[in-house]
Structures are given as C-alpha cells and as structure tokens.
C-alpha cells in the first residue's frame, strides 16, 4: 500500500472507532440519567455529602487529566517516529492510569467497609454502577496500553502500531471527557449546598 491508501484505511478505522465512542457516550448518558433520578433515594442511608471526600476526588481528577495529556504527547512522539519517547510517554500514561484506578478502588473498598455498598440504597447502586463502569473502561484501556507497549518494543512504530496507538489515544481522551461529567455531576453537585 502507498501512503495515500494507508491514510484512507486509517480514516475508516478512525471513523468506526469514533462511532463506537459515541454509542459508549449513550451508555454513560443513560447511567447519568439513572443516577440523576435516584440520587435522592437514600433509604435512610448516607447522602452524597456524607460519603464524598473532595480533596481526594480532586487529586484523582488531576491524575487522570495529566494521564490523558501525556498520552496525547506520546501520540505526537509516535507520529514523529521517536520510539523511545513513545514508550516513555505511554508508559507514564499507564502508571498514572494505574494510580487513578487504585484510588478509585480504595474509595470503593472504604465505602463497602463502612457498610455503604451498592446494596444499601438505590442512590449507592446508581453511584457504584456509574463510577464502576467508568473504572471498568479504565481497566480495559490499561490492558490495551500494556499490549501496545509490548508491541512497540518488539516491532517498532509500524503503520499498524501507529494506527492502534492513535485509536488508544482517542479512547483514553474519551474516558477523561466522561470523567469531567462524573466529577461535576456526581461529586461537585453532590457536595454543593
């Protein structure tokens, strides 16, 4: 294939992946709707303001934001053909992603330890499903970036690897976009008076 044909195929992949991301947006949209409807249904259990720790969530948000920024820089390095920088930057993306997921899981385990699991009230069910679905996407992204790091180390920045890296970057940026709304709608509006 010449470069023009490669670009054409890449655009097809990009559009297909874009359609997937937009349908995923609808999945999150319906979970947000569920959460908005059930946020007051605490059944005598804790309310939003009782369980959210804001400085902790702000740190989580900034870590994910830095991760998505580093991921974008990694894609620029990959397109420029700089293999070492690509591995360093996507490796950093992965480490920040792991830190984010670890913080989210520690928040979950703390809540469950206090007896506030998804079985406590409709509000907590909606909370765990919404934030947990985002966490499951982060886990999928982490597996993907580990696979890509191995492939780039073994085979270098081939056209196939470049295409997959650009799709991964799109996915990772999309997860940060979803987190803006989780941070605002769930956490900030939850503690706002």
């Amino acid at each position, binding site marked *: 294939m010449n470069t023009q044909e490669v670009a054409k195929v890449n655009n097809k992949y990009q559009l297909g992946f874009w359609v997937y991301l937009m349908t995923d947006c*609808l999945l999150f949209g319906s979970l947000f709707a569920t959460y908005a409807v059930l946020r007051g249904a605490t059944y005598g259990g804790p309310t939003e303001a009782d369980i959210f720790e804001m400085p902790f969530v702000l740190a989580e948000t900034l870590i994910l934001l830095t991760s998505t920024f580093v991921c974008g820089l990694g894609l*620029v390095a990959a*397109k420029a053909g700089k293999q070492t920088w690509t591995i360093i930057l996507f490796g950093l993306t992965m480490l920040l992603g792991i830190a984010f997921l670890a913080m989210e899981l520690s928040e979950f385990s703390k809540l469950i330890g206090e007896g506030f699991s998804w079985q406590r009230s409709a509000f907590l069910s909606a909370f765990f499903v919404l934030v947990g679905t985002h966490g499951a996407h982060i886990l999928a992204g982490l597996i993907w970036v580990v696979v890509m790091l191995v492939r780039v180390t073994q085979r270098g920045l081939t056209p196939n690897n470049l295409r997959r890296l650009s799709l991964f970057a*799109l996915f990772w*940026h999309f997860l940060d976009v979803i987190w803006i709304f989780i941070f605002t*709608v769930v956490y900030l509006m939850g503690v*706002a008076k």
Partner: protein
Amino acid sequence: MKHVIRYVIGFVVSVALTLAAYFFVTGAYFAGSVLIAVIAVLALIQFFVQMFCFLHLDEDEQPRWKLAVFISMGVTLIIVVFGSIWIMNNLNYHMMPPGEMDAKMMEEKDKGF
C-alpha cells in the same frame, strides 16, 4: 509542533476549569441553583475544549461524518437524560403521599403560585 501546542493549551485550560469549579464549590462563593448552573457551565466549556484539543473533532475529512455522528449522539443524549429527569420528577410529584402534598402546596402558595 502544532499538535503539542494544542495539547498544552487543552491541558492548562482543563486544569484551570477543574480547579475553578472545585473552589467555587468548596469556597461557597455561590449557593443553590446559581452554583449548580456555574459548575455545569464550567463542565460544558471543559467538554468542548477537550473535544477539540484532545479528540480533534475539527480535524474531520469531508463529508464530516465524525461531526454528524457526534451531533446525533448529542441529541439522543439530551432527550434520554433530560426526558428521564423530567418524567420521573413529574411522576414523583403526582405520586406524593397526601401529607407531603399538603406541605408542597403550602410551599408553592408562599412562592405565589
């Protein structure tokens, strides 16, 4: 280089908007529905900044399929989210127990309905 600058701008603006929303809530500069509206607007601005700086919504080939899919997603999303909230609030309002209904009617009478 052009892309690096875009990523840096997107990152700096996103951090600034996140911190602004955070301090508006913790510092209690606004209250009630004004505060909710302010942080919702900040989230929407950050959403569009990231759609352009990170997800490159504008770097689309003609015909602009990415934009078309994005808009149809947005319309469906708005119908699902705001439709659900509207319908369920309306349902709660009409299924209110009699005692709560009296309190609600007194409250709305005070507001001047």
